[in-house]
């Protein structure tokens, strides 16, 4: 997981915060900020609202810190609070997005056939210096059905393991695996044909082919 704090240090901070060293909460929550924000952005599709919801989440985590039992990882607990905050906001929004939270279930058949290619030249991470590539990746992830997007976000972007992802989203580990597989397949299908243009140019021999 990205920037994961070590659990013992976390437990110690929590104990001290509850004993009165409140300022330590800032460093306790810091490693969770990214995941909180992007999970909420994935649910709410709006930067300003995701940020406001992220702040509310942090405050709720602080107010409820005495309820954290330590039987899950702290970040998992925090993300389940973030998810509830996001879902609560969606429910309160009269003008719900066309994508209903209940619309898609794991049982739904879908076409998860990958884009068929006969060769692949790796796109190196340096290609991300190009804003258009980062934008293309974001758009493709934003375009995933929600149940796949949330899992891809936590597993592949925030690099959480299967168990934590399942706990944070309130689903089984089996569902996480199925959704991740489908989410990746949808991403590969959407992206592979477009990503080819970001492959490094082959060096041409003798310089005649330009």
């Amino acid at each position, binding site marked *: 997981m990205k920037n994961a704090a070590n659990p013992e240090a976390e437990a110690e901070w929590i104990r001290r915060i509850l004993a009165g060293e*409140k300022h330590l*909460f800032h460093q306790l929550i810091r490693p969770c*900020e990214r995941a909180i924000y992007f999970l909420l952005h994935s649910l709410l599709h709006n930067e300003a609202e995701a940020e406001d919801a992220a702040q509310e989440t942090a405050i709720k985590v602080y107010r409820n810190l005495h309820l954290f039992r330590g039987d899950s990882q702290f970040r998992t607990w925090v993300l389940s609070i973030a998810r509830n905050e996001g879902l609560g906001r969606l429910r309160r929004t009269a003008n719900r997005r066309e994508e209903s939270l209940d619309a898609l279930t794991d049982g739904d058949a879908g076409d998860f056939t990958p884009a068929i290619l006969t060769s*692949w030249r790796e796109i190196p991470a340096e290609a991300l210096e190009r804003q258009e590539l980062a934008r293309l990746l974001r758009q493709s992830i934003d375009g995933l059905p929600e149940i796949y997007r949330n899992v*891809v976000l936590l597993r592949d972007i925030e690099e959480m393991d299967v168990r934590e992802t399942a706990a944070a989203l309130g689903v089984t580990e089996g569902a996480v*695996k199925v959704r991740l597989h489908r989410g990746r397949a949808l991403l590969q299908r959407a992206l592979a044909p477009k990503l080819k243009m970001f492959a490094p140019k082959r060096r041409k021999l003798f310089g005649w082919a330009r």
Partner: protein
Amino acid sequence: MRIDCKHVWQHISAYIDGEVDAALRAEIDKHLETCEICSAVLDSTRNVVVLVADDRVFELPAGFADRLHARLDAELALEDMR
């Protein structure tokens, strides 16, 4: 028993995560040796997984952390007054 392409695609995600058992992994590896389509599908999927994990793809809005911690400070101060 030789496995076919569709069978390989079903396990690509688990294969990338190292979650297929040794026997299945050996079958898939054998298939990949001779199937350029599955090799390309695997390589491109793995490439996509690596790219989306890069911090440059999803960046927090500028000033996000400052605003979050300022709001937390306000909450902590408010608590002192209660």
